[in-house]
C-alpha cells in the first residue's frame, strides 16, 4: 500500500554522497604524513581522492602497484563483521585487527579508525558501514579477510542487514564486565536469523572487575553457544587478538561463490564522489570482473564501463580484477546516486544472471518536525538536510509548514537513536541550529466510510499528521505500532522496571535470569510509549545498569483520539496531537500547563484548554496583567528602556496571533520541542 503522505527522499535507495565538511577529519591523518616508514591508510569514506596525498602501505610489499587478487581463491576468503552493544569495544578490536594485518600502522593513535563521523566517535557507536580488506597469514597461506564493519544499533539494522548479506560470519563482542546487554541480544538475532557463523568474543578481560566466566555462562544460557567457543581478549592491550583472526579463518566458512560462474555482484553500499561519480561497494557472488569490463545494473538495465575497481584496506586500493567471493569497490561512470541502488545486482554485459534478492526498504517508525531556528536559515538547513538524507536514505523527508514555526520538514527515522544521531550530525557537521519537535509515531486507521476509502484509494491509511486523523465514526479501528523491547538489568531493579513498563501500557512476554542476578525481560510496548523519555527513565531508575533495545512488532488495534488545544476558544492547529485514550487526560493537562508557563501574561485573561471534540478535558488560566510599567524613567534610563522596548517590538513581529493573543515562538518551542 502506498502512503500518499510520506514521500521518500529520492527513490528508495540512495547511495551515500560525500558532504564536504568531512574533509576536516582528514587532519587526523596529516600528523603522520612526514613519517615515511609507517603511514596511515585511513580511508575516508567521504574523502576526495584528490585530497589524499601519500599512500604507502607498510605491509606485504603492497606499494602502489596493483595486487593480484587471483592469489585469493574463494576458499582463502572470509567475510565477517563485528557486532556489539555500545562501548563493548567493537571499534577498538577493529583497530587491532587492522594493525595486526598491517592495514594500518601500529601506533597509539589508532582510535576507532573506522568510525569517521564525529558523532560515531563521541557516542562510541558506528552509524555507517565500513569495509576493510585484511591480508592474513595462516598456516603458511595468505588469506583475504574482509571486515565489514556495521552499525551497532538495531535502529541501523537496515545497514546491519546490508552488511550481513555480504558476510558469512560475525564476531559477537561482549564486555567482560557488563556482560550481555540488550543490544547484544538484538544483534545476535540479526546474525542468527541470517544463519551466520557466530564467534563470541569476550572483550576487556584486562578490567579489574572483568568476570569472563560469568559472561560465558550468560552466552551459553541466552544464545545456546557452548562456553568453550568464547574467545577471551583485551582489544585494548591486543591480548588474544591474533587468536580471533585464527578463529575467523577456522570457523567462518568461505563464501559460496565460484569463479567459473558468470559475474554477479551485490551492491551493498555506495558513496558519491564529485569527481568520479558513484563509488559502489560490491560483494562478488560469482565470476570475476576487471577494469574495462562492461557491466549492467539489473535494476535499471543500464550498461556501464568499469573505470576503476579495487579493494578497501580500508583506503581505496585499485586492482586489475576482483574475483568471486571478494569484496571491493567499483567505479563505473555512474553519474547519479540513483544509479547505484543498494541491493542492486550487477552482471556482465550480455551475460545476464538472476538478480539477487534486494533489501527491504527501511520503514520510518519515529517522526519529528524539524524547523530552522530562524526562517532566514531555511535554505541553508534545507541543503544540510538534503546532504544528510542523501547519505542516509533511511530518513524519509516530507515538507511541512507550521504556522508557528514556519517552513520545515517532517522527518521519519528508523528509531530514536537514529533520530538523535541525525540531529547531532546536522548540528555538528552543518552547524545548523534547529528546532526538533517531540517525536510521534505513524498510526493507522482502517476506514469504514466508503467515501474516505475512495478518497484514499485504500481501506487502511497511515496517519502521520494529526490534521489527517479521521473521525471515529469513519473508521472501523485505529492501529498503533508496537515494538518488542528487551531490557536487561540486575534483578534489584526488576520491580521498578516492571511498574515502569506497566505504566507504559506494556505487556510482559518473557522473563529470564541470564545469570545469578541479571534478568532479561521482554515486553511488547506501544512504540509511542517509548519514543519520548522511556529510556532516560529506565536509565535513571536503574542507576544506569539497565540496557534497552527494541525491534518492530507490527501494529495492534488501539483506542486513539485526537486532542485539540484552544486559546480562548480558538484551536491552535500545530498543537493538535493523537494519543491513546488512557493518556488523553494527563497529556492534555501537561500541555496546558506547559502553555500556561510559556505564554507571557497579556492584558486580558487567557483560557488554555485541551479538548476532545467538543469536550474540554483540561484547562489552565493565564491571568491578565494588572500592572506592567517601569516605575522610573528619566534621562539616564531612556536608552536602556528604548532598547528593551525595541527588542520586545521585534519579538512581537515573530509572534503568532491566535485570536487576539500573541503567542511567542518560544512558547511553541517549549511545548513542541523534545525535552
Amino acid at each position, binding site marked *: 500500500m502506498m502512503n500518499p503522505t510520506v514521500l521518500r527522499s529520492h527513490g528508495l535507495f540512495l547511495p551515500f554522497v560525500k558532504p564536504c565538511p568531512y574533509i576536516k577529519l582528514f587532519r587526523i591523518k596529516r600528523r603522520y604524513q612526514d613519517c615515511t616508514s609507517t603511514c596511515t591508510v585511513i580511508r575516508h569514506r567521504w574523502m576526495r581522492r584528490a585530497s589524499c596525498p601519500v599512500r604507502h602501505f607498510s605491509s606485504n610489499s603492497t606499494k602502489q602497484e596493483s595486487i593480484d587478487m587471483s592469489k585469493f581463491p574463494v576458499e582463502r576468503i572470509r567475510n565477517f563483521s563485528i557486532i556489539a552493544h555500545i562501548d563493548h569495544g567493537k571499534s577498538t578490536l577493529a583497530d587491532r585487527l587492522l594493525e595486526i594485518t598491517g592495514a594500518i600502522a601500529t601506533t597509539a593513535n589508532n582510535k576507532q579508525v573506522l568510525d569517521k563521523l564525529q558523532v560515531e566517535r563521541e557516542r562510541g557507536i558506528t552509524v555507517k558501514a565500513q569495509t576493510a580488506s585484511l591480508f592474513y597469514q595462516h598456516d603458511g597461506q595468505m588469506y583475504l579477510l574482509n571486515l565489514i564493519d556495521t552499525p551497532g544499533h538495531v535502529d541501523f539494522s537496515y545497514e546491519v542487514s546490508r552488511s550481513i548479506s555480504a558476510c558469512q560470519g560475525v564476531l559477537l563482542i561482549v564486555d567482560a564486565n557488563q556482560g550481555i546487554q540488550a543490544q547484544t541480544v538484538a544483534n545476535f538475532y540479526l546474525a542468527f536469523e541470517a544463519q551466520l557463523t557466530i564467534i563470541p568474543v569476550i572483550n576487556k578481560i584486562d578490567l579489574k572487575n572483568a568476570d569472563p566466566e560469568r559472561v560465558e555462562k550468560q552466552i551459553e544460557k541466552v544464545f545456546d553457544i557452548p562456553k568453550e567457543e568464547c574467545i577471551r581478549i583485551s582489544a585494548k592491550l591486543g591480548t588474544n587478538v591474533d587468536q580471533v583472526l585464527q578463529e575467523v579463518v577456522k570457523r567462518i566458512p568461505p563464501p559460496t561463490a565460484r569463479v567459473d560462474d558468470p559475474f554477479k555482484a551485490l551492491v551493498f553500499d555506495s558513496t558519491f564522489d564529485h569527481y568520479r561519480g558513484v563509488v559502489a561497494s560490491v560483494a562478488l557472488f560469482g565470476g570475476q570482473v576487471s577494469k574495462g569490463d562492461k557491466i549492467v545494473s539489473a535494476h535499471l538495465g543500464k550498461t556501464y564501463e568499469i573505470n576503476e575497481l579495487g579493494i578497501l584496506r580500508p583506503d581505496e586500493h585499485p586492482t586489475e580484477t576482483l574475483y568471486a567471493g571478494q569484496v571491493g569497490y567499483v567505479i563505473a561512470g555512474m553519474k547519479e546516486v540513483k544509479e547505484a541502488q543498494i541491493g542492486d545486482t550487477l552482471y556482465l554485459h550480455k551475460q545476464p544472471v538472476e538478480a539477487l534478492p534486494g533489501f527491504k526498504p527501511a520503514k520510518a517508525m519515529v517522526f519529528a518536525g524539524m524547523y530552522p531556528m530562524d526562517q532566514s536559515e531555511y535554505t541553508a538547513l534545507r541543503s544540510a538536510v538534503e546532504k544528510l538524507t542523501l547519505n542516509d536514505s533511511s530518513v524519509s523527508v516530507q515538507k511541512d509548514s507550521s504556522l508557528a514555526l514556519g517552513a520545515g520538514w517532517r522527518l521519519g527515522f528508523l528509531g530514536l537513536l537514529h533520530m538523535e544521531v541525525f540531529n547531532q550530525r546536522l548540528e555538528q557537521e552543518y552547524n545548523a541550529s534547529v528546532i526538533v519537535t517531540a517525536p510521534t509515531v505513524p498510526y493507522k486507521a482502517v476506514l469504514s466510510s466508503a467515501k474516505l476509502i475512495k478518497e484514499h484509494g485504500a481501506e487502511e491509511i497511515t496517519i502521520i499528521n494529526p490534521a489527517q486523523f479521521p473521525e471515529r465514526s469513519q473508521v472501523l479501528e485505529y492501529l498503533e505500532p508496537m515494538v518488542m523491547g528487551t531490557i536487561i538489568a540486575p534483578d534489584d531493579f526488576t520491580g521498578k522496571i516492571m511498574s515502569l513498563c506497566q505504566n507504559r501500557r506494556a505487556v510482559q512476554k518473557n522473563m529470564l535470569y541470564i545469570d545469578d542476578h541479571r534478568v532479561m525481560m521482554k515486553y511488547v510496548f506501544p512504540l509511542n510509549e517509548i519514543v519520548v523519555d522511556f529510556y532516560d527513565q529506565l536509565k535513571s531508575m536503574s542507576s544506569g545498569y539497565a540496557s534497552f533495545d527494541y525491534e518492530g512488532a507490527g501494529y495492534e488495534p488501539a483506542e486513539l483520539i485526537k486532542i485539540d488545544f484552544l486559546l480562548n476558544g480558538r484551536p491552535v492547529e500545530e498543537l493538535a496531537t493523537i494519543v491513546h485514550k488512557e493518556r488523553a487526560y494527563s497529556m492534555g493537562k501537561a500541555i496546558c500547563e506547559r502553555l500556561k508557563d510559556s505564554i507571557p*501574561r*497579556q*492584558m*486580558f485573561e487567557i483560557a488554555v484548554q485541551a479538548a476532545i471534540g467538543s469536550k474540554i478535558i483540561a484547562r489552565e488560566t493565564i*491571568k491578565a*496583567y*494588572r*500592572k*506592567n*510599567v*517601569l*516605575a*522610573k*524613567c*528619566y*534621562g*539616564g534610563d*531612556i*536608552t536602556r*528602556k*528604548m532598547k528593551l*522596548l*525595541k527588542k*520586545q*517590538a521585534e*519579538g*512581537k*513581529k515573530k509572534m503568532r496571533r491566535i485570536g*487576539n493573543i500573541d503567542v511567542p515562538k518560544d512558547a511553541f518551542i517549549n511545548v513542541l520541542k523534545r525535552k
Partner: protein
Amino acid sequence: MKSMCRSSLKHCTGTVADGVFLRSIATRLATHADEASLYVHWPYCLKRCSYCNFNKYISRSQNHNVMTECLKKETQTLLQLSQISRISSVFFGGGTPSLAQPSTIAAVLETVSKHARVSDDAEVTLEVNPTPAGKACLKDFTLAGVNRFSIGIQSLNDDHLRTLGRDHNSYHALQTLSEARTVCPGRVSVDVMFALPGQSVKSWESEVKTLLPLCDDHVSLYQLTLERGTQLFKQVESGELRVPGDDVTAVMYQSARKILEQAGFLQYEVSNFSRNNAVSKHNLGYWSGQQYIGVGPGAHGRFVPNALGGVQREARTQTLEPDVWIREVQRQGHGTRRRIQLDPRGLLEEVLVMGLRMNKGITKQHWKLFSPEADLYQIFGVSDKVKEYQAEGLLILDDRGLRCSWEGLALLDSILPTMLLELEMFFETKGMTRTQHNNRKD
C-alpha cells in the same frame, strides 16, 4: 549655518525627498533648538544601598575642588558644543548630590549663567538624602541657587529602610522633610518606594496615608525593581527575602494612586504626583523630548552638537568612572564616552515612549514638532491594535492627541511595543512610497 538651513528649507517644502523630513524637524524645533535642561551627576555615596545599581562610588575622600573644577569645565564645554543659549532647568542627581559642597553647586550654576541664559524662576532641583548632615546643608544649598528639593525618603518604616541599606531612619526623614519645606516651601518632592520585601498592601497604604499630612506638593512613587548584581537581588534569589508578587504590587500601585488622588494630587506621570501644579519641570522635559545636557560621570544627554555642525540630535553618555572622567575632562574639556546619532525615527520613538508616560500624553501640537508630516491619526488611527486598545479603554486617540487612560497607564509597557511597531510600519510604507516617488521622477 542655522540660517542657511532655514532658508534652504523654504525651497524644499512640498517635495518628499529624503532629507526634508529631518531638516523640517530641525526647523520646527527651532523655537526650542537653543534651549535645553541640564543634568549634573554627583557620583559619590556614603554607603551602598542594597537595591541600587546606579552609577555611584563609595569613596572615603573626595577632592571637592577637583570635582568642582571638572563639573564646571564640562558644563562649559558641552554648553559651547551645543550652542544652547537657554537653560530651562537644572537637576543635581546622583549618587548623593547632597554630599557635594554647596559651593560646588553654586560654582556649577554660576558657570551655567555665564554661558547661557537662566531665567530667575528656572527650576533648580537637588536630590537629598534625609540624613542629619543633609538636613544641615539645605539652607546653604538654597543660598547656592537650589530652589527645589527631591528627598529620598523611600520608606517611613525603619525595618524597610534597613533592608534597603539606607543610611537614614524615618525620624531623620521627617526632620529633613520638615526643614526642606521651611527653606523651600511648596517646592519639595519626596520619593517613596513600594513592593519592598515583607511589605503588605495594608502596610503600604498606611504608609502613604501617614505621609500625606507631612509631605509637600510633590510625591514620586517607585516600585522596587530587583537589579541583577545588587545585594538585594541575591537575597531574593536565595530566598532570604521575599518581595510581593505581581498581583500584589499591582494592587499597591493602584491603591496609592487612589489615595493620592483623593488627597488632591494629580498623577501627571506614571510615577509622579503633584498638587498646586508643583510638577517637576525638569523631568517633564525628558518626557516631552526636550534637549538636555548631561554633565558628570555617567550622565546622559540628548542634544544637537551645533558647534560641530551637527543637525541630528545625539544620545550622549559621559564616562562612568569618576577618576577616568576627571582625567578626560582635565585633558579635553569633557568626558563624553559615547555618541549615537538619533535619526528622525529614533527621535520619534523616544517622543512616543516618553510622551505616553504623561497623563496628558502626546498632544497634537507636541507631535507635530517632531513629526510635521504625519499626524497621530495618520500613524496610529488606522491600526486595528490601537483601535482594540481604545475599545478596551486603555488608550485614547482624539483631537487633543494620544494618551493612556487611567487603567492604560498601568499597562503602558504592554502597549508600547505595539505602538513602536505601528510607527515602524508607517515609516516602512512611507519609505516605499518615497522610493516609488523618486523612481517616478527618474
